[in-house]
């Protein structure tokens, strides 16, 4: 099978995953006890007629199966309904606006986590002994850190005490670059806007570091284990016997430890997106996660449902990328 066909088949497999997640979300949001309309209106008394009117407007008076398919049809058209709290605001438009911020943060955090993971894991595998044990402890502790806590501690050190970096936000509003991709770093480079670039980077450092550190623990562990194994393997011994420098041996061993790392990237995707929700809230980062939490607090159920469904689509689509990368780097995988 060619790679193109593999990707096509994989894309088709996204459909059931999205459907299952959508169904679960639908059950959670609409079938579980609790009246979203009453909840959205708060605790004060609202005449029953008004409740009915709002229900009818949002389509919540129809039978559940009708709602299920209507929402699904909307999802395919890119229509996630209207906000229940902010009258007339399209949920889809809001989500579209927030998406680039989340993408920028997760890409940066992902890069940070892989770099830290490779550096710490390699050091552990090469040095062994006490260093190895220390890195092992780092791997576990990094994973068990509560993201808002780590973020706020970094804010305390770098913003409050040292006054080096901003404590939140995505960019200084005066310097927002011209919109091309929505990713401020990319946009400011394309338009050659150095002030925007500096401001965007300055705001990105702490959130990316926070999320990156928490996710790095798993990479440290996996690189450490597989690299140590590769360095002990027969091909490494053979390289050394032929007088290859240790740095070259390490390069070969690292390449062979890539496969489990890519597997982990796939598994970590859920943690990356979930972590983004906590990171964004901590740093007032205006992405999908902040949007979700803000609307949870407003009890804006259509917006919450829309955001959760969009997260489901993102998870399913990104897992394809991981599979394809996997197939590309490991020649043993048949697709």
């Amino acid at each position, binding site marked *: 099978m060619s790679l193109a066909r593999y990707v096509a088949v994989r894309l088709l497999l996204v459909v059931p995953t999205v459907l299952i997640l959508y169904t679960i979300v639908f059950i959670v949001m609409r079938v579980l006890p609790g009246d979203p309309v009453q909840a959205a209106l708060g605790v004060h008394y609202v005449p029953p007629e008004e409740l009915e009117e709002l229900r009818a407007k949002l389509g919540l008076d129809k039978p559940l199966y009708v709602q299920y398919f209507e929402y699904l049809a909307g999802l395919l058209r890119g229509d996630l309904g209207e906000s229940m709290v902010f009258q007339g605001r399209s949920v889809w438009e809001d989500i579209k606006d927030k998406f680039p911020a989340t993408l920028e943060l997760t890409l940066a955090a992902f890069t940070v986590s892989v770099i830290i993971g490779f550096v710490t894991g390699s050091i552990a595998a090469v040095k062994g002994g006490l260093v190895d044990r220390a890195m092992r402890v780092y791997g576990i502790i990094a994973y068990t850190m509560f993201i808002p806590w780590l973020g706020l501690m970094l804010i305390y050190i770098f913003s409050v005490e040292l006054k080096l970096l901003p404590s939140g936000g995505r960019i200084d509003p005066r310097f927002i670059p011209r919109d091309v991709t929505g990713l401020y770093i990319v946009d400011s480079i394309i338009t050659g806007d150095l002030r925007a670039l500096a401001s965007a980077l300055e705001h990105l450092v702490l959130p990316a570091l926070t999320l990156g550190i928490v996710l790095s623990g*798993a990479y440290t562990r996996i690189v450490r284990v597989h690299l140590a194994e590769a360095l002990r393997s027969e091909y490494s011994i053979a390289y050394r016997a032929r007088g290859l420098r240790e740095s070259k041996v390490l390069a070969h061993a690292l390449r062979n430890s890539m496969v489990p790392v890519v597997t982990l990237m796939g598994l970590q995707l859920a943690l990356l997106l979930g972590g983004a929700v906590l990171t964004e809230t901590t740093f007032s980062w205006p992405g999908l996660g902040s949007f979700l939490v803000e609307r949870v607090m407003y009890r804006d159920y259509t917006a919450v449902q829309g955001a959760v469904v969009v997260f489901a689509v993102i998870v399913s689509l990104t897992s394809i990328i991981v599979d394809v990368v996997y197939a590309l780097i490991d020649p043993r995988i048949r697709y």
Partner: protein
Amino acid sequence: MEGGLFSRLMGVVAGLVRGPGGLMTATGLAIITMFALVAIAAPWIAPYPPDVRPPGAGLLEPPSLRHPFGTNDLGYDVFSRIVWGARVVLKVVLLSSLMSMAVGVPLGLISGYYGGPLDRLLSMVMDSLYAFPGIIMAIAVASVLGPSTFNAAVALMVVYVPTYYRMTRARVLELKNEPFIEALQAMGAPGWVILVRHILPNAAPTILVVFGLASADAILTEAGLSFFGLVAVYPQPDWGLDLYYGKNYLLDGAWWLVFFPGASILLLALGFALLGEGLSERFRVRGGSYG
């Protein structure tokens, strides 16, 4: 009999603490036991009530001998709030872990042993749910159900059932082809006897490892829910919620309002993670989502 049971339990613990991973298991158990004792003995350990300003206590007082973790913006003693808050997090996480186990393990046993269309359907549902960010699913469930410890436990259950299911099922698939199971089948033992009497005991170490690792994760997810006000209502003492309110005073330099609740979350999650790690080394079980 009480003494007999206790010494048997101690025997099991001693067995786990020896051998590979023993140090991690022991450290993990020690941390968990410490928090459990703190939670049980909260009224005697906490020097002040958690939601009353003690006489003479200032607002936003930094840590001192009188208030080892300082006081918050209302003058409440942070140390006392942490002590009482241990009850909330332990209650939610233990309840949710037991419920996830009660649902995930039987489903995994049946699914793995009998196979067929039910197995395929369940696997697909569980795999989809497993790939989804747990905290987001938990937020969705908890936001519909409303803030309470029980609702938070239900929300966490939805997140962790797939973990128990997948690990149990994978273990059953391994065990199913073992000669002793085939022998039992040949002798005509009924399916449920094989499952309950022979496969379940052999899958128990795996389930125990998952319990440690999933509970560590559940503590962090619970902290996230409580950070978003989906577990308790202020001024109820709750670590994540305290951290959320504390962050408003961080820019004024009141680091203690954030540091101590967060450090408690870290330490408790670390306890469960070490327990899971130690046990997985002891039983040579490969851990779940984190490598």
